Structures are given as C-alpha cells and as structure tokens.
C-alpha cells in the first residue's frame, strides 16, 4: 500500500519536474532564438522557414497560401450553406490568392487563436477582422488597413444599455475571448462582469438566449447584428478609440508584408474595397456605412 502510494507521489513529482524542465528549457531556447534573430536580421529573414514563417517565394513555390479567417462571423468571414467561405474578409483573401497565383487553404480561426496561428506559422496571413492594436503589433506585423472599426455595444431594445455606467453589479456583458472589446473592458471597466465565449456563433446564440444584458464587440459587428435581428438596438455605437482592421503576418515576414502593402495600395486604384463592400456588406449595412467602413488604398481618411 505504502509502496504504491510512494510510487504515485514520486511519479507525480517527477511529472511536475519534467514539465517544468521542458518548459524552462523551451523558454530559454525561445529567448536565444529571439536574440539570434535580432543579431542576424537580414540573413535570417531571407530564409523565413527557420523563424517559423514562409517567405513570399516559399509560398509561391508551394502553390498554396494558408489564410486564417473566421468561419462563423457573418458578414465578414463565414461559411455559406454550400460550404464555401464568404464575406468581406474572404472576398479580399480570394483576390490575394488570385494575384499571387496560388491556391488558398482557409484555416478557420477563433478570435483568441489569431496571434498564436501566426506565431506558430500555421497560417501565412490572418484576415480575420483583426483590429490593429499596440499590444498585438508587438506580437505580429500588420499590413496597411482595409477597414475602420471602433467598439460598440448592442442590447435588447426593451432594455437598451446606453452607457457602460448603466450596467449593474450583477449584470453580465458578453464578449468574445481575444477581441479588442475584451481587452478594452478588462482594462477600462474592470468592475463589469464579462461573460466570455470562444466563438462568434456561441456568443451570439448566448446573447439571443438572454444570457447577458449586452454584447460588446467591434461596432461593425454589433451594428450588423442589430440590423439583421429584430429587437436589438446598438445603444453605444462607438466606444474607445477609432481603430483599423488590417491583415497580419508573422513578425519579421518582410517579403510577404511588403507584397501585401503594395497589393492594398494598388487595389485602391480600382476602388477594390468599395466593390468588396458592395458585394458582401451592402445587404447588411445598406449604402450609408460604405464610406465610414471602407478604407481604400490603405489610407485612413
């Protein structure tokens, strides 16, 4: 009896020690990789694969590009009833594939996974309604923006939340894990209780079911929700800073970043993102939001 007990205890301790050892080891190897990277900037960036990303040439050679998009965030990135990816982000992704001359492999991401996917090189580009923030810019490289965004709060029309100060101590606000709304509320309104979901579909269903008094997210998204679903009003249409949404690549992937920036600039000449809006967002927002939302040629008005 004692023997087995002891064995289990020791093995448990060993596991802890082992995991700790591996994690510390990796932590330090991570650091050394980072310093190496900084020391030999140019050469290491040319051959991206070692640093966990694929350069423009490598992508072209392989014939496919991995693009991370949402699969449950209509009308920006979702899957239609025939199993095809569609939406504002996807419309742009299709164009990227065409202009690069490669096939697109869509990777369905959740908000909280986006940085992780880039840093581990599992996708080449994130085109998942990714808001540019300072914190994120330390982890990934953003290209030029293609959309404007701020935060917004939607609530049921019979109990509209018009100010965050109205939110009671027991009320919960729904947010999606890993979004700017979550970070903003955590930082600026630490007393508001947040109810967090991984996926857009889950958050919206929970909101419909009445699990929270309001849902805070990108204002584009909450406005779309209030237009598409009866009985909801956007009580706070703009909150926090005005931000932009841009494609992101793995930190240091200069070649792909440059290509993307050139692409966005040149697409401005043909008013590509206006066409994108009209193809994917017009049904939801009508024409009124076109100029507020769209950023053309990477230049914010």
């Amino acid at each position, binding site marked *: 009896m004692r023997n087995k007990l002891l064995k*289990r205890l020791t093995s*448990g301790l060993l596991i802890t020690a082992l*995991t700790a050892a591996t994690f510390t080891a990796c*932590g330090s190897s991570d650091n050394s990789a980072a310093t190496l990277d900084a020391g030999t900037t140019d050469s290491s960036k040319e051959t991206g694969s070692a640093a966990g990303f694929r350069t423009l040439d490598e992508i072209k050679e392989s014939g496919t590009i991995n693009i991370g998009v949402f699969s449950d965030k209509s009308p920006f990135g979702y899957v239609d009833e025939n199993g095809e990816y569609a939406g504002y982000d996807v419309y742009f992704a299709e164009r990227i594939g065409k202009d690069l001359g490669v096939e697109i492999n869509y990777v369905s991401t959740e908000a*909280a996974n986006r940085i992780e996917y880039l840093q581990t090189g599992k996708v080449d580009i994130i085109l998942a309604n990714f808001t540019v923030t300072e914190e994120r810019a330390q982890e990934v490289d953003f290209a030029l923006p293609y959309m404007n965004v701020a935060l917004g709060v939607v609530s049921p029309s019979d109990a509209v939340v018009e100010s965050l100060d109205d939110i009671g101590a027991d009320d919960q606000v729904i947010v999606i894990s890993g979004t700017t709304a979550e970070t903003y509320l955590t930082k600026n309104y630490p007393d508001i209780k947040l109810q*967090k979901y991984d996926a857009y579909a889950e958050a919206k*269903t929970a909101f419909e079911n*009445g*699990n929270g008094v309001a849902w805070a997210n990108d204002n584009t998204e909450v406005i779309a929700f209030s237009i598409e679903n009866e009985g909801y009003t956007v009580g706070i249409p703009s909150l926090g800073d005005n931000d932009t949404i841009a494609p992101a690549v793995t930190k240091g992937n200069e070649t792909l970043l440059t290509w993307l920036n050139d692409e966005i600039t040149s697409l401005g000449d043909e008013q590509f993102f206006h066409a994108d809006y009209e193809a994917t967002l017009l049904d939801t927002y009508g024409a009124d939001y076109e100029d507020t939302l769209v950023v053309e040629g990477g230049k914010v008005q």
Partner: protein
Amino acid sequence: MDIDILKSYIPLYKDALFLTMKIGWQGILLSLILGLVGAAVLHFKVPVLKVITGIYIEIFRNTPLLVQLFFIYFALPKVGVKITAETCGVLGLGMLGGAYMIETIRSGLESIPVIQTESALSLGMTKEQTFIHVILPQAISMSVPGLLANVIFLLKETSVFSTISLMDLMFTAKDLIGMYAKTIECLFLLVLFYLIMLLPVSILGAFVERRMRYGQFGD
C-alpha cells in the same frame, strides 16, 4: 519562461481552480446521488423506472459532454428552458457522471453474493433494511476504486466548461493566450494547476484501492 508573468497570472488561475473545483464537486455529488438512485432502481428491477434509467445511461454514455452542454446551454433556451452557465455545468457533469456511477455501483451490488440477502431476510430484516444496512455498505466499498476513477474522469471533463463561458482553468489559459500571447507560461500554469487538482485524487485512489479492495486477484 518569465517568472514575473507567471506570478501575475497565478491569481487568475487560482480563481479558475476554485470555480472548476466548485462546479466539479457539485456535479460529482449530483452524479453520486443519481448513481445511487439509478443503481437501486436497476437492482430492484423497478418497473418503468428501470427502462427510463436504461435509456438515460445509453444516451449519456454515448454522447460527448461537450455536445450535451451545447444542447443544454444553447439549444434548450430556444424552446423556453433557460439556465445559467454554472447550473448547466453542474447539471451536465452530474448527468454524465450519473450514467457512469450507476454502472460502477451496480457492478458493486452484483458482486455481493445472493446468500447475504437471503441470510438477512431470514433474520427478519425487511428488503429495504437489507439493502441499506447489508448490501449497500459492502457494495460501496467494493466500488470505491471505480468511483474514484470516475471522479478523476469527471474532474478532467470539466475542461470543456470553457465553451459555455465558465472561467475554468482551460478557459483562463485560452483567454490569456488570446490576450497576451504568452503561450508557454499559460500552458505551464495550466498543467501545474491540473496537477494540483488531480494528483491528490489520484494518490487517494491508489491508497483506497489497496485499503478497500479485498478479494482481489492478479497483480
């Protein structure tokens, strides 16, 4: 690994641990109650209830907890049944666990020789007395190792609570990774806290297995 980051995250993980334990143990308590009742129903072959218990076991043993939770939490409100995430977690875990506990307790009951029931009855005990005072105590002690294995299994299953907005350990890790991208620190703490929660139960399991199991063979 950055020690300062670890330190700053620990309080969050601690809260998550408490929530996980709270819901976990409530669910396990519910599953034990369901297990006892269900096993008794099957043992006494109570008409109708016996069939219902059988169907219940098959349904909950053959579907994933995640899908059960999704159904209870996201789908049922559409037809007017609304419950909070915590209740849903307790209920889901309890119902799933119940299906396993019934089987474990029942096999404990079955391992008690029939002659014991016969002797108790011939001593003038009623059927209920026999069950409660003679059969059940022995059956429970026979099934303790199995029950503890179920407890570990159920505490592990709590990791899916994250999908219904419960801030359990798994969710805290995912959430922090999403916000600050300190993956290695977050995963390390995740492993550490699961060890803190489950290693004692596992050790207890080994202890009890030796202590309680008589009539054991092999090994």
